């Protein structure tokens, strides 16, 4: 299908360009580690209570570092008016969204998968006891961040103070998802399974992702072409 081919082309293009320059990914890695370091001064990493706040802490790191990647997503199309090249092509807005979102997803996940072991080391926490459920939660939450962030990256690309506007607009929208992700992450890092009442959060993450991905797919064309 042409649609899928176009999505793949855009995703590989973004990833290849990023691997050549490594601008966003290096900054994002560094940022994540710095935040983890600073927060470890704020909370004594050896205490039991750290396990409780692990969920919140990790997702603060993920969202802040993720914003760097998302900002770059459409900013990389500005030099040479490359965005014009994409808009002139027979690529529907939804394909452009999906292509870029997938590339962003891969990059942000890469940063998170580095941040997790670093977190484990700095805070002396064994976080792998519920590894696959944790990966599920991280995956779902990151997609929510990516879907909304990619649309807003396109929306803010030409605004002054873009780097500030993007997080300012995206974070409030993501609060429900962050609540669920933080809660489940704290649970899973502490080694407890998702059970009983907490499954509602998992359903929230799924629902959030589906709703906002659908919205993004529909509205991307409007954002790009007015």
């Amino acid at each position, binding site marked *: 299908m042409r649609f899928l081919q176009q999505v793949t082309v855009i995703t590989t293009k973004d990833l290849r360009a990023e691997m*050549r320059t490594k601008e966003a990914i290096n900054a994002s890695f560094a940022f994540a580690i710095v935040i983890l370091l600073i927060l470890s001064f704020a909370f004594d990493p050896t205490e039991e209570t750290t396990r409780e706040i692990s969920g919140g802490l990790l997702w603060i790191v993920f969202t802040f570092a993720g914003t760097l990647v998302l900002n770059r997503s459409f900013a990389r199309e500005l030099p*040479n*008016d490359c965005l014009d*090249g994409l808009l002139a*092509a*027979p690529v529907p807005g939804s394909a452009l969204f999906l292509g870029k979102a997938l590339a962003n997803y891969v990059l942000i996940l890469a940063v998170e998968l580095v941040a997790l072991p670093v977190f484990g080391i700095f805070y002396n926490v064994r976080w792998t006891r519920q590894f696959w459920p944790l990966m599920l939660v991280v995956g779902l939450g990151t997609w929510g961040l990516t879907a909304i962030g990619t649309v807003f990256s396109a929306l803010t690309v030409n605004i002054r103070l873009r780097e500030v506007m993007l997080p300012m607009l995206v974070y409030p929208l993501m609060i429900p998802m962050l609540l669920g992700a933080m809660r489940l992450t704290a649970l899973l890092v502490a080694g407890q399974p998702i059970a009983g009442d907490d499954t509602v959060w998992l359903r929230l993450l799924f629902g959030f992702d589906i709703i906002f991905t659908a919205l993004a797919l529909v509205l991307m064309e409007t954002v790009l*072409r007015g």
Partner: protein
Amino acid sequence: MSAVAVDCAGVWKFYGDFPALRDISFQVPEGRCLALIGRNGAGKTTLLRILAGFSRAGRGQTKILGSSPREADARSRIGFLGHGIAIYDELSALENLRLFGKLYGLPYPDHAARHWLERTGLERVRDGLVREFSRGMRQRLAVARALLHDPSVLLLDEPFTALDDRAIAVLQSVLRDALAQGRTVVMSTHQLREALELATDVGLINRGRLAFHGERTPEMITDPGWVYARYGEA
């Protein structure tokens, strides 16, 4: 009677309430070359971007080969060259063209890419990163990108501006070939001489209105300012 390649009917474009384009209507039959001239800020770029499907007209319709350029399929028959070259600095020349070839759904993107690199004299640097290219080389690569997918209609926004001599020659040769093959060209320009040599029709945009639209006459080449003097504002 040849078919209409570019059809503009009652197009207005508003920035807020201010009309940047007012009631623009014209047709370009297949195989013709329309040169759009006008002052800076007259609305040439705005019009071309609407024709290419980048933005929406506030009122009126545009059709390229019978379909609206806002439909994805219609855009596969349009080649656009704007102010920016729309080429990725971090990729090589070949990678760039292959990328666009795949986006346009070409059956043999690699083949088409290599063909156009030869055509624009860039096959020796095909694996070089565009970041290291000279300005003229980038312009030639942009021309390759615009024509890679064999478009029937070419929309060019001031294509001759800031080109070196070699790039100008390449572009003129490419456009002549395209017109000889029956393709349609609409280009906005300041470089009257190079453009008017190729043009079959001329249109003057003045403050958002189409002040003049007619065939290109020999007088226009000898005295390019004639149209401005006759139909431009006082």
